[in-house]
């Protein structure tokens, strides 16, 4: 279907829905490099005006990537819940934004319609929203998940402890892990990105973290972020696998470039169900995403990078994950050029994920060739704290010495807890108190020589 709008003296024509979505997107260097972005601000606003008037129903009639060629389009079609869609089916994209922002629309109402939303509807509404809209609506939605503790409750905020090491050295990883625990980090997961994807390395690290968790009875989960096929292999070898990890993208072709299909994820999910290691709940999948992945894999089908990203959430939602983490500034300046683009993308991803019903966290991060610095990360951290983000990364000194990028530090999470009064997962909070590491208000206590964690 062709779409038109006039701005000033110019009449803009867009040949199809995916072009409207791309041209309505806030400025991103990745869309510019792919030749999909609006040529100027007039064209961008024309596309937003067009988009605001498109009925949500139209998104069910016009696929942006045909089901015949893409398994994720098929998944989106098959999993669409028309009953949940009913109550908003009369709305346009603009009307949907107004509905989301209305006083009467609370988190419960949003959760009821969420299964009726396709990723394209969610991407569309985000494109006509201001940053404050993304924050306000996201803050209405709570997505609570459980494995050995409870993540995502209102007023709570969790962290992944990320003790990466350039040589997968056990002692180095353990030193960073202890440091993190002493700052009260690690209630979302203690998760290592291994340098080597070999099953033996992964097994060795899994056993080490599992032993630590048992020894101190830490109410959390551990994960080695290996390829899903490596993890399936290790489950078959009875390794102590808590969470099953995979990076995912929003097109079938992106995921085949990552070396897996939806069938692989089905198999992994089944294996996790049979393991049944969760104590307080049964969410065990851990997904990572990030705008630009489909584009860098040359697998975007002419769809803008943010819409591709939300399509990845349709994959995630099928598997009721414990954690979904958008790694927002890692991909480089050719996709997100500067702090402004990273901040916008972080808010979009968090909002869109929550609207899709996912437990969204964010790796608030940048590389040294992006035009951004730690102050931009402070800004995004504060905004996401206000928006009710489920978790962030905790990296020693914000400097990941293995992946060579900067994220958020152990100290950063203490900052956001102080200014917004955010608590950790209740079970973990209790453990810290019991270990004499924090007081009842969540403040860290002085660690004495001879503290149990230092015996290791």
């Amino acid at each position: 279907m062709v779409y038109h709008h006039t701005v000033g003296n110019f009449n803009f024509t867009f040949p199809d829905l995916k072009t409207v979505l791309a041209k309505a997107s806030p400025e991103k260097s990745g869309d510019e490099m792919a030749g999909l972005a609006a040529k100027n601000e007039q064209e961008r606003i024309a596309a937003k005006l067009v988009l605001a008037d498109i009925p949500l129903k139209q998104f069910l009639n016009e696929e942006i990537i045909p089901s015949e060629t893409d398994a994720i389009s098929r998944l989106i079609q098959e999993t669409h819940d028309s009953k949940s869609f009913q109550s908003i089916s009369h709305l346009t994209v603009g009307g949907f934004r107004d509905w989301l922002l209305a006083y009467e629309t609370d988190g419960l109402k949003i959760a009821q319609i969420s299964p009726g939303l396709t990723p394209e509807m969610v991407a569309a509404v985000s494109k006509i929203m201001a940053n404050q809209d993304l924050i306000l609506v996201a803050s209405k939605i709570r997505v609570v998940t459980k494995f050995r503790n409870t993540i995502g409750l209102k007023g709570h905020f969790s962290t992944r402890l990320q003790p990466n090491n350039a040589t997968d050295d056990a002692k180095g990883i353990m030193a960073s892990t202890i440091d993190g625990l002493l700052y009260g980090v690690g209630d979302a997961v203690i998760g290592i990105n291994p340098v080597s994807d070999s099953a033996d390395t992964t097994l060795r690290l899994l056993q080490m973290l599992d032993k630590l968790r048992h020894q101190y009875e830490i109410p959390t989960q551990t994960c080695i972020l290996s390829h899903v096929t490596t993890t399936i292999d290790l489950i078959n070898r009875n390794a102590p696998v808590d969470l099953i990890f995979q990076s995912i993208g929003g097109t079938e072709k992106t995921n085949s470039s990552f070396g897996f299909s939806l069938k692989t994820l089905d198999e992994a999910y089944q294996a996790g169900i049979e393991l049944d290691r969760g104590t307080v709940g049964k969410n065990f999948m851990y997904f990572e995403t990030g705008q630009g992945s489909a584009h860098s894999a040359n697998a975007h089908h002419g769809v803008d990078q943010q819409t591709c990203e939300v399509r990845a959430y349709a994959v995630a939602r099928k598997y009721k994950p414990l954690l979904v983490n958008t790694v927002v500034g890692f991909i480089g300046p050719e996709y997100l050029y500067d702090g402004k683009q990273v901040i916008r993308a972080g808010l979009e991803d968090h909002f869109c994920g929550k609207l899709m019903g996912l437990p969204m966290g964010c790796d608030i991060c940048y590389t040294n060739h992006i035009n951004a610095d730690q102050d931009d990360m402070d800004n995004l951290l504060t905004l996401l704290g206000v928006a009710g983000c489920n978790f962030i990364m905790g990296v020693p000194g914000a400097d990941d010495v293995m992946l060579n990028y900067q994220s958020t530090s152990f100290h950063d999470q203490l900052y956001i807890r102080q200014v917004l009064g955010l608590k950790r997962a209740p079970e973990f909070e209790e453990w810290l108190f019991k270990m004499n590491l924090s007081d009842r208000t969540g403040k860290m206590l002085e660690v004495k020589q001879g503290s149990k964690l230092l015996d290791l």
Partner: protein
Amino acid sequence: MSDASNSWEKLKDFTDARIALGRTGGSLKTQELLAFRKDHALAKDAVWTPLDFTLLENELENMNLDFLRLGSEASDRETYIRRPDLGRKLSQESIAIIKNSNPSPADISILIADGLSANAISTHAIFFLEEFLPLVDRFSLAPICLINQGRVAISDQIGELFSSKISIILIGERPGLSSPYSMGIYLTYNPKAGNTDEKRNCISNIRVGGLPYAYAAGKLAFLTSEALRLKLSGIDLKDTFDSQLLKNDFGKK
């Protein structure tokens, strides 16, 4: 003010990660905050500082080496950062320079490109070549190409234009917070435009506190002669250099 820090300072012995930093309240103490900002300042400047080609050219002249100065299609630093695809292609002008030089086929093309850290190249490239070239003097060498705003894959196009059997590019790596001046080297057998990364062998982290020149040069010489012998590179070329080292003590000083 709590300085509840460093009862666990001894853990620092086990890792380069920034642990046991201490705190004031929940925040970093002044010294640590500014130390981080200093490291980021170095890394950021490394990305944006241009390469001093004249200096490199003087050094190459002193070594009696032929060279050409070339550039990619990325005409300035911002374009280079935004458009990696342009950094992988030679400018039309540079293609003409190579063609006009009437190149005769050679075993090895050596390229030196700024990449994401020109400082890495000005610090390490010449010292590295001084170690490496004597190890491969039985092979023929195309003129050394100095490339402004280059990415790794530009080595395919250049190697192809010279009809070289192997293309080797020395390039500034993306600066890490603790390693702003680190050089990487990529070797490709049968360089052709459109080759992908699995066709390349990589030696990275050549820097102060990283891989020493002599070790990296020995490794690259090993990969070079193996690639020429087996007529391949990349994932099919097994890097057994370290086990060779153990066998014959090569490289021990």
